[in-house]
């Protein structure tokens, strides 16, 4: 006689843990970094230093949020560092030319969107791999910045409100950091709760399926590069406002920090997956490591080595460990 029984469903906690394994592991890594550096240097955990860390992390975080969207579509944007440099230089030139700073900011946001739109058009409508288009962008945009400034730093004068964006504080918290948090929250809500976020994930997961169910797949794919361009403009403005000048040499190696932050946070390069919380934790980890190494009086050049190593290890863990759908604890036998 056959007896029919229903399969037991496992604990929802195990499901939750395995689904968020990557965010949990980066959170753990972040806490380890915090513990390590506070043990190595008593100045690390002071509020002054921590505020400094978040102020410096702000531009990275803003662009990393946009990069999360780009990578979720299985694309990449290598041009972000050059774009920040170009807009950083341009905003200084524009303000030096007598344009009032609020208008200059508007123009810069438009410029970022436009540059991102051109790259997005090549990638989405012309089918050129994102890697190639943005690698060309990396060279062209930095070149344009150098050409415009001839390599000199351009000072910004008499723009108090503008400087406040980079140096100001609201109830003791740095304005750039607050802006970055705002951007991260916005990114989180958009990816989790809106149709646009759903479209970005769909395009990254299965572009043809997205097209077949009637999503504007190409437009969505192009749009993430526009978002990245705007984010670069915001980051460039914050940098210019903090340093009080614009320079074609700004944001060297910025793209690496941003990409490292995103992949460290568990957003898969294969697309279809985005973790905003992971990106925030990844950015903070990168920022803390950079800051901690300096406090330990280790050569600043060493941070580059660490950043590169983190990218490699993060991607390695991404492909080797997490794709296998490993579970914490033992699988229950039925």
């Amino acid at each position, binding site marked *: 006689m056959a007896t029919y029984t229903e399969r037991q469903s496992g604990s929802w906690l195990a499901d939750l843990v395995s689904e968020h394994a990557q965010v949990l592991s980066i959170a753990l890594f972040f806490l380890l970094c915090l513990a390590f550096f506070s043990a190595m240097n008593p100045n690390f955990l002071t509020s002054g230093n921590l505020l400094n860390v978040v102020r410096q992390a702000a531009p990275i975080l803003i662009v990393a949020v946009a990069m999360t969207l780009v990578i979720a579509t299985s694309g990449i944007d290598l041009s972000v560092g050059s774009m920040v440099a170009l807009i950083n230089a341009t905003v200084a030139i524009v303000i030096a030319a007598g344009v009032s700073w609020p208008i200059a900011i508007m123009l810069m946001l438009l410029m970022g969107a436009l540059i991102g739109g051109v790259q997005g058009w090549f990638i989405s409508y012309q089918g050129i791999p994102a890697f190639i288009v943005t690698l060309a962008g990396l060279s062209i945009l930095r070149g344009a910045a150098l050409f415009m400034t001839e390599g000199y730093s351009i000072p910004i004068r008499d723009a108090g409100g503008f400087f406040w964006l980079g140096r100001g504080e609201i109830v003791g918290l740095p304005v750039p950091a607050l802006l970055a948090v705002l951007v991260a929250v916005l990114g989180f809500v958009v990816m989790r709760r809106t149709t646009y976020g759903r479209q970005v994930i769909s395009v990254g997961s299965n572009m043809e399926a997205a097209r077949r169910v*009637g999503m504007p797949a190409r437009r969505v794919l192009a749009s993430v590069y526009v978002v990245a361009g705007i984010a670069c403009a915001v980051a460039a403005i914050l940098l210019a406002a903090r340093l009080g000048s614009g320079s074609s040499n700004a944001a060297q190696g910025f793209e690496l920090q941003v990409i490292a932050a995103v992949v460290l946070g568990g957003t898969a390069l294969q697309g279809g997956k985005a973790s905003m919380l992971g990106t925030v934790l990844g950015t903070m980890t990168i920022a803390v490591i950079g800051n901690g190494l300096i406090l330990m009086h280790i050569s600043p050049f060493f941070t580059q080595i660490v950043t590169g190593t983190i990218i490699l290890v993060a991607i390695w863990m991404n492909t080797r460990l997490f794709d296998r759908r490993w579970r914490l604890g033992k699988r229950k036998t039925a």
Partner: protein
Amino acid sequence: MSAAALAQPHDSAAADVVPILSLHDIHKTFGSHQALRGVDLDIRPGECLGLIGDNAAGKSTLSKVIAGTYVPDEGAIKVDGRPAHYTNPLEARELNIEMVYQDLALCNHIDVVGNLFLGRELKRGPFLDQKRMLAEADRMLAALEIRIPRLTAKVENLSGGQRQAIAIARAASFQPRVLIMDEPTSALAVAEVEAVLELINRVKAKGVAVVLITHRMQDLFRVCDRIAVMYEGTKVAERMIEDTNLQELVDLVVGKGGH
């Protein structure tokens, strides 16, 4: 096209009904490969049309033309007797033409609910209305007797049969007028196949036109009213189900029907 002349539409009572969808002389070429060489096909309300043929006979290409995924190089499509020019799946969807693709067209990284509502998410203000979508999805799947334990599970974690069931539920649940199913039962278990065949009979009764592509010949005789046979990019025969039998269909598919 001489091949088109070979087709003998056994027009009976159905001939009086205006077809929901009418294809005329559809051509589609991919590079040097002539996928479709002049296909005529009428699809009538409340009728299930079985589309059979060997591999690469053009069944899937034809169904994708109907669904708007491919735009034919030549030929005309009429919807309700009026010329229709849809150039993408969205426009076809707006004409209530839905399709279950052979590759399912699901997003593996998105959960079950998200896939069911892919492309027509329910919203509350600017945000996705997850609660209402969950409730609706529950109802959609229950109506098709599909059992999926957790609707918030990612599709990549489901079995092939469950994925196929989701693709079918997605196409069948939004009041289609034409429902195209490309190999919908290939990965399904016994009970699920029965549910799909039942579903076809149920939507037929509501006046939906169903196009069924399948290799399971025995299923054809359970749900179809008419069979169209494709061979090398043309329609070589059309039979009412009561006028034919399994052997004849097999002969037609392999190209022995031309005497």
